[in-house]
């Protein structure tokens, strides 16, 4: 079953009473990709995921997951996907071995095959030495690895990860992503919702949902190249300075500056093309701030989301 598009949604809509939680979302996820699903809390991310997982019926629209219809073939969908939620949702009082045994059993694995699958996923996530302690006593990172192991136990081609790295330490976060890249290289598809911009940068495809609508989609490169993000007559520069926050204040009010923000101790500016670098230098010296280096930069994904969201809020 080599589907090119492992998820296809058209006009996917969900209303709760008079509230529209998801509004005509069109979305395509290519097999083998890591699809980053972004958006603020309450924008409809979880509702989309629940519909795609076959847990919640759409009010309107159609979608197929692994080739199965989300309205009529929910059982087939559930058998063919893995799911890992942001909060640890395996049994805390059971050991990892018992949890994996339980979830494997639910997916109909048994006997020797189940044992082999448990061995395989434990090996994959490196959980071996923690197999006999209660899962609730594992650290956040190990809990997530266990959850991932459980999501992979029945060899699903597609795995949904709902904010998988929320609240775990940076090392665990990095190693979880390394694992995802690895698996993606083996042909697995991941649908990952996240708040982290650096995680979004790692995805091969991105969808950004805002106020129930999917307002952006594409690869990170495509999104950064969008004309709305760098409007005609503007350019982006980074200002390296010893005193970033004071500099930010000074530059924000400067003529020709449309947007200013701090990134990694540098001030990022969106300025009119008519504003030369020297104007920035002189504005800083007027404010009695040390001189600084100015260089041109490409927009980041955060710039993309901020610019598009702002223009939506205005209009």
């Amino acid at each position, binding site marked *: 079953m080599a589907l090119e598009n492992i998820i296809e949604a058209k006009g996917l809509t969900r209303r709760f009473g008079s509230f529209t939680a998801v509004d005509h979302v069109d979305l395509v996820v290519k097999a083998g990709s890591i699809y980053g699903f972004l958006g603020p809390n309450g924008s409809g991310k979880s509702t989309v995921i629940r519909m795609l*997982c*076959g*847990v*919640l*019926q759409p009010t309107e629209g159609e979608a197929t997951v692994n080739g199965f219809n989300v309205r009529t073939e929910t*059982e087939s969908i*559930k*058998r063919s*996907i893995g*799911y890992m*939620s942001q*909060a*640890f*949702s*395996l*049994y*805390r009082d059971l050991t990892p071995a018992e949890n994996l045994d339980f*979830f494997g059993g*639910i*997916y*109909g694995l048994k006997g020797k095959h189940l044992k082999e699958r448990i061995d395989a996923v434990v090996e994959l996530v490196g959980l071996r030495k923690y197999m006999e302690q209660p899962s609730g006593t594992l650290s956040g990172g190990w809990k997530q690895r266990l959850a991932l192991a*459980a999501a992979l136990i029945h060899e699903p081609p597609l795995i*949904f990860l709902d904010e998988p790295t929320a609240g775990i330490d940076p090392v665990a976060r990095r190693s979880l992503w390394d694992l995802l890249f690895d698996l993606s290289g083996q042909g697995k598809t991941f649908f990952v919702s996240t708040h982290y911009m650096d995680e979004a940068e790692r995805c091969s495809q991105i969808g950004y949902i805002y106020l129930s609508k999917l307002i952006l989609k594409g690869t990170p490169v495509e999104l950064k190249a969008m004309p709305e993000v760098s409007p005609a007559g503007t350019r982006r520069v980074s200002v390296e300075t010893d005193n970033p926050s004071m500099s930010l204040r000074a530059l924000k009010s400067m003529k020709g500056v449309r947007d200013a923000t701090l990134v990694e101790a540098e001030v990022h500016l969106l300025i009119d093309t008519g504003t030369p670098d020297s104007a920035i230098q002189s504005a800083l010296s007027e404010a009695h701030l040390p001189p600084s280096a100015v260089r041109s930069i490409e927009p980041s994904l955060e710039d993309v989301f901020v610019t598009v969201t702002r223009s939506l809020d205005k209009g």
Partner: protein
Amino acid sequence: MNGLWSVIRKEFMHLRRDRTTLMIALVMPVLQMIIFGYAINFDVRHIQTAVADLDNSRESRQYLAELHAGQYIDYVASLSSPEQVAQMLRNGSARVGISIPKGFARTLLKGGNPQVGVMIDGSDAQVSVRARFAFVSPPKNLPAGVPDARVNVLFNPDSKTANFMIPGLIAVILQIVTVALTAFSIVREKEMGTLEQLMVTPVGRLALMIGKLVPYAILAMVELIAVLTLSDLLFGVVSRGSLITLSIISIPFVVASLALGLLISTIAQTQGQALQLTQLSLMPSILLSGYVSPRETMPGWLYMLSSVIPGTHYMQVTRGIMVRGAGFVDLIPQFLILSLIAFLLILASTARFKKSIA
């Protein structure tokens, strides 16, 4: 008292949004008042009575009518032999049996004292005491002689309270424990977030319900053995009937109670609410089941309400088997009703479970 007003307001807001707690707080005392008020009534009247009138004369019918006029007894069956009357007493469909022998009218008209056989089910002491009142003073408006009612108290003839109360208590205890066993099972998963994970797996709703039920059903059967052993050791109450029969009929009861717990678990949003709902369900289990006072004393609507509680029927089973030595055949109605309640409760909780996750 910094912030007192804010805290008061906040708590009211919580309360307004937590409909379940609000409902319980408002409805519970009302229900308790009604149920306590009506259910605890020891003034037993209209006791179910079976009659075998072998004489079938004008005088025998008049005698029966006079007995009925005292309001203690109601006739529920007219049978053709004393054996049939005894059978009705054993299976619990009548509490009093009256057998009028042939020749009743003849002896009476001669001015004699014709004997009348009266059987009273002694398993419920309150009922049997009241039933005896019906025969204390002989009817006055009969011609010539006075019938001699020979009262024979069956089952628990010494009216030992323990013989009657302990089997009832067994039913109450099992009801309480089993409901509590499952009341938390679903809502706990909801709170822990594990339900979310389960929902994206292909596990069936019914499989989940029954899967949660079976281990607790086994546990409850072990508890049954424990309380039976204790009732013998502590109170010297030993079953007259077969313990195997008791165990078999206990199965649908245990399943029904556990399913009631599951239903609570699908309704409650938090474990706290599950606890409150469990307590709410316990009160009628104790008060309406016939444990505290005979169901015969309850008004019709309360009697109806009591018949949807598994414990009510199970109490008839424990008392029937342990006190009266009833057999399986005598208790087939209870067995069927308990099975029906179990079936309906499982359906209801499965249906309710679907709604709660959508």
